[in-house]
């Protein structure tokens, strides 16, 4: 993961875009992470006959090349399905800029290199307007300095340290955490027997 994410941004102004809309359930019947690009925003991108909806932003030039989304409030709400993030990454999306994200979606994004900078409503609206211009706004997100630059706009964004470090380093949380195996064993040693769940098979 680079420290700077650059690309064309597409405005997606709807509030409360949920993970059912990002990844409809008919694409969830899978045991792998792959093959989810076509399912991403499927009902927004395609009509019932499978034809592209020409009016949808990601089907219009230059936003067919978009790698950043400017999104409405509470993006990613609903189901915990990580398929939503996998699909967005497979569609080529590297970042979503918004005023706030649902918690599980936020954590899933971090695990998959999808950056979610949080900005004020005013900045979000300004970016939304800018990215809606026919030239298509090229946006630059600097994770190190936590700043976004686009056109005349230069603004700071919020991102917690752990998420930022994870995005920059692209690390594997599971393997990293196993370095604390000793601490986990110590914790378990302090549990009395009635605090150790054992499920009847």
């Amino acid at each position, binding site marked *: 993961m680079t420290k700077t994410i650059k690309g064309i941004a597409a405005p997606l102004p709807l509030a409360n875009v949920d993970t059912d809309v990002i990844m409809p359930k008919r694409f969830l019947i899978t045991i792998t992470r792959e093959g989810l690009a076509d399912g991403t925003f499927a009902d927004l991108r395609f009509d019932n006959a499978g034809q592209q909806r020409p009016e949808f932003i990601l089907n219009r030039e230059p936003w067919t090349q978009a790698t950043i989304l400017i999104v409405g409030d509470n993006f990613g709400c609903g189901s915990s399905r990580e398929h939503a993030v996998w699909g967005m990454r497979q569609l080529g999306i590297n970042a979503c800029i918004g005023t706030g994200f649902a918690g*599980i979606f936020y954590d899933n994004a971090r695990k998959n290199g999808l950056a979610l900078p949080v900005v004020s409503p005013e900045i979000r609206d300004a970016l939304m307007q800018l990215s809606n211009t026919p030239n298509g706004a090229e946006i630059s997100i600097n994770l190190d300095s936590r700043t976004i630059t686009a056109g005349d706009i230069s603004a700071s964004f919020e991102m917690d340290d752990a998420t930022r470090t994870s995005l920059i380093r692209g690390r594997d949380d599971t393997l990293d955490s196993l370095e604390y195996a000793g601490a986990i064993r110590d914790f378990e040693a302090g549990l009395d027997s009635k605090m150790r769940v054992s499920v009847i098979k």
Partner: protein
Amino acid sequence: MSRTLYDKLVDTHKVCDLPDGDMLIYVDFHIMNEYTSPQAFSGLDTKQLDVWRPEAHLAVVDHVNATRSKEPHDAASKLLIDNLQANCIKHAIAFYGLGDPRQGIEHVVVPEQGLVAPGMLIACGDSHTTTYGAYGALGFGIGTSEVEHVLATQTLRYKRMKTMRVTVDGDTAPGVTAKDIIMKVVQVVGAGGANGYAVEFAGSAIRGLDMAGRMTVCNMAVELGARAALIAADDITESALQGHPHSGQFAFKGESWISDPKAVFDEEFAISGADIEPLITWGTSPDQSVPITANVPSAVDYVSPEAKAALARSLHYMGLSEGQSAQSIKIDTAFIGSCTNSRIEDLREAAKVLEGRHVAVGVEAIVVPGSAMTRIKAEAEGLRAIFEAAGFEWRPEAGCSMCLAMNDDIAMDGERVASSTNRNFEGRQGRGARTHLMSPAMVAAAAVAGHLADVRDFKRKTSK
């Protein structure tokens, strides 16, 4: 120093701080289903990792299985179910699959099995894991990468949330249920209003609920964005811990599982129980609800152009007109089920409305009990007979079914469903399907009337 219940739960489960601001927290119990776990097991394989403590996990089939029969309805769902079973055998994890007398919707099965107790920390790859807050346990949903993390380490990387308390005081009117209470909270706080917060529910209207009602409240707290929901443990909680297969196995001592009297919350909301009416959603977000006696909103009710546009979009999807009365909305389908409202208590409430009545002509009505145990209990109580006499289809197998339509219970384009579920998102119950959320009793009333109806107009016909 005074602490909230949430802070006590985090403090007692903290393994260590991590250098970048996260902490590792210990997961006492982890639940899996067939659709969010396959890639987690593949991750273990790729990294050549073992499951840290296999006995602390339970896998339940619930999301994709058919509820008409024990047989999977297609090859794709069979693949997911078989994959979970194979992974559980390989890693020595308890598996409650199709045909197992303990199978059902995970959040219905866990309390039935006595696998939740105050002071526990429970994770699951399902957003409605907030349900366990009803027991004074910290439950929350996780993604598949985190499922892998719990399997391999029995911990999660965690950031402490801010705290919010929602107090609902005062008696609620007859006909007003736990579902109406939480739908009111979602309406007031807003979808996403509790993003970043752990929410504790307090007040006499909450204390007065039985465990099923408390679970309904905590279950739907995720619809306001809460990453955790909590209700302080009390005598009602304690008595609910008895009589299950795992009863007596666990006791999480060391703290009183209530917030200290002087604990300070980052946010507070207060709602009067007396002001809550039976609610229905009219839109495509769970906070878009009105009392059953009211009308669908109009553009004049909103100020900003964005809000007016959002209203227009929701109404267009839902096929409704501005200002239309809630009770004029005709339905095609009635669905009672889901982790929110498929417990025995929910079925009893719906049966009270249905006894001596019949579903309206043209309405398809389905009830899917939350678990095999719930179904058997309901049949023994005579509830199945009431549902079937009223024209409901009684499903023999348990599962999430039409709540999210991952099995073969899919609503058609434009089909309108009165639903006891938790999400009215676009496409949730099928592409183009139109969902109205409400309590199970209100679904029963709508099924009988053929349109959304006020359950308070349905006096009980026979007395028991």
